[in-house]
């Protein structure tokens, strides 16, 4: 079958697509920020010797790492409101799912990053008279964050791609907008091609950056 490519409908719906793009970026940024923050706390809890911190955080991480994000998002949108007193909109459900997923993965990055610093570094800080917090802040984290940076950027890449899952609960991000437009305009080929290209244009530079970083790190 011969297909005649026609992108004119795209331009007519430019506004809708831009809204989608904006929502995609907002969702990714919010979930990344929250995920990195909570990931640090959960990572610290998993580092703890106290069972009350260690076990819940470990269960949390394993649950969210080992279930599909799509299921998590659906669960927060359809199941969570039934068992909880709150109503939840599509943005909140998507944010919850993606944030908790990012939290789980990034907590592992923090943990591995901190683990990778030799014990002698802690000891040197301690011997100077630093408190545990000072050792972490002045000695360990500055070194660990450098090693963690490529992994965090990889997380951002994954997260950007995962935002498209929010379309299943009608959150108007790029993918959902494309679906709407294509049903109105009957142009799924142009629509989804464009969305793929838009994602590629955002994600690819980021992925390149990660690669450069990793190379630089290896070279050192």
């Amino acid at each position, binding site marked *: 079958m011969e297909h005649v490519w026609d992108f004119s409908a795209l331009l007519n719906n430019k506004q809708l697509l831009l809204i989608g793009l904006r929502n995609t970026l907002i969702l990714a940024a919010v979930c990344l920020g929250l995920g990195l923050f909570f990931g640090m706390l959960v990572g610290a809890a998993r580092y703890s010797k106290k069972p009350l911190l260690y076990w819940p955080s470990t269960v949390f991480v394993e649950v969210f790492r080992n279930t599909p994000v799509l299921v998590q998002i659906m669960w927060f949108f359809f199941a969570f409101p039934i068992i909880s007193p709150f109503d939840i909109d599509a943005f909140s459900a998507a944010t919850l799912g993606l944030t908790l997923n990012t939290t789980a993965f990034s907590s592992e990055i923090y943990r591995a990053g901190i683990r990778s610093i030799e014990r*002698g570094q802690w000891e040197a800080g301690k*011997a*100077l008279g*630093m*408190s545990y917090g000072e050792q972490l802040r*002045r*000695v360990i984290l500055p*070194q660990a964050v*450098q090693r963690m940076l490529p992994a965090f950027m990889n997380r951002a890449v994954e997260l950007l791609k995962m935002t498209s899952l929010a379309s299943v609960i009608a959150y108007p991000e790029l993918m959902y907008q494309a679906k709407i437009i294509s049903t109105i305009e009957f142009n799924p080929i142009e629509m989804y091609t464009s969305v793929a290209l838009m994602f590629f244009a955002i994600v690819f530079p980021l992925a390149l950056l990660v690669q450069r970083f990793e190379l630089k790190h290896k070279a050192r």
Partner: protein
Amino acid sequence: MEEVLRIEDLHKSFADLAVLKGIDLAVNRGETIVILGASGSGKSTLLRCVNFMEIPSSGRIVMNGRAVGRAVDGKQTYSEKELTRLRARVGMVFQHFNLFPHMTARENVMEGPRTVLKLDPAECARRADTYLDKVGLAWKADAHPSELSGGQQQRIAIARALAMEPEVMLFDEATSALDPELVGEVLGTMKELADEGMTMLIVTHELGFAYTVADRVLFLSEGRILEQGTPAEVLTYPTQEGTKNFLRGHGSFRLPEPQLD
């Protein structure tokens, strides 16, 4: 003579492994004490109990006449705050230097005064200059540890500890990780400190250094002080079989002395 540090009936066990089995030692201000002993005899553990990198199982550490911790039901208990304060008054130099790689030499030296003592920037800078100069590395102030030789790194580590202006300095095999040609410069720095009246506890296998620099030599065996005295007494005329065996096994005693100046 003024006593700076007293160790009283110190015991330390790891799980059911008893490592220190009753150490008593009084250290006078300005004294240089070298601790010898076979591998596993507890030398590192002894040093690490002095600045509470390890918490003693029993016994007391007395600094400047005041016991560290509080006696509760006949056992010393310690608050974390008290221990960090104590550690700030005791300098420690490690076998593997443990410099902070993300900081320059100067920043390494300033880190304690800045973060722990919370001194103002001018005083931090003064200390950095003073102690970098003391170890002869003012010209390397802006280098990162990775750009320094092992000997230079260890001297920066010594400066970092000195910048806290500690009452006692602990050296745990400070030259063991160094290439032989770099040992001399670090021992030289340590000798200068001893000559200037720093109070030092030094674990080392450099018997020549012990002989010329120590005021007192201790021989540790299986968690106890088997023998102690002047370098001549312990190294030249040992009385205990354990000490004699150790010295026999130490051919390096007969090597030429390192150049210390």
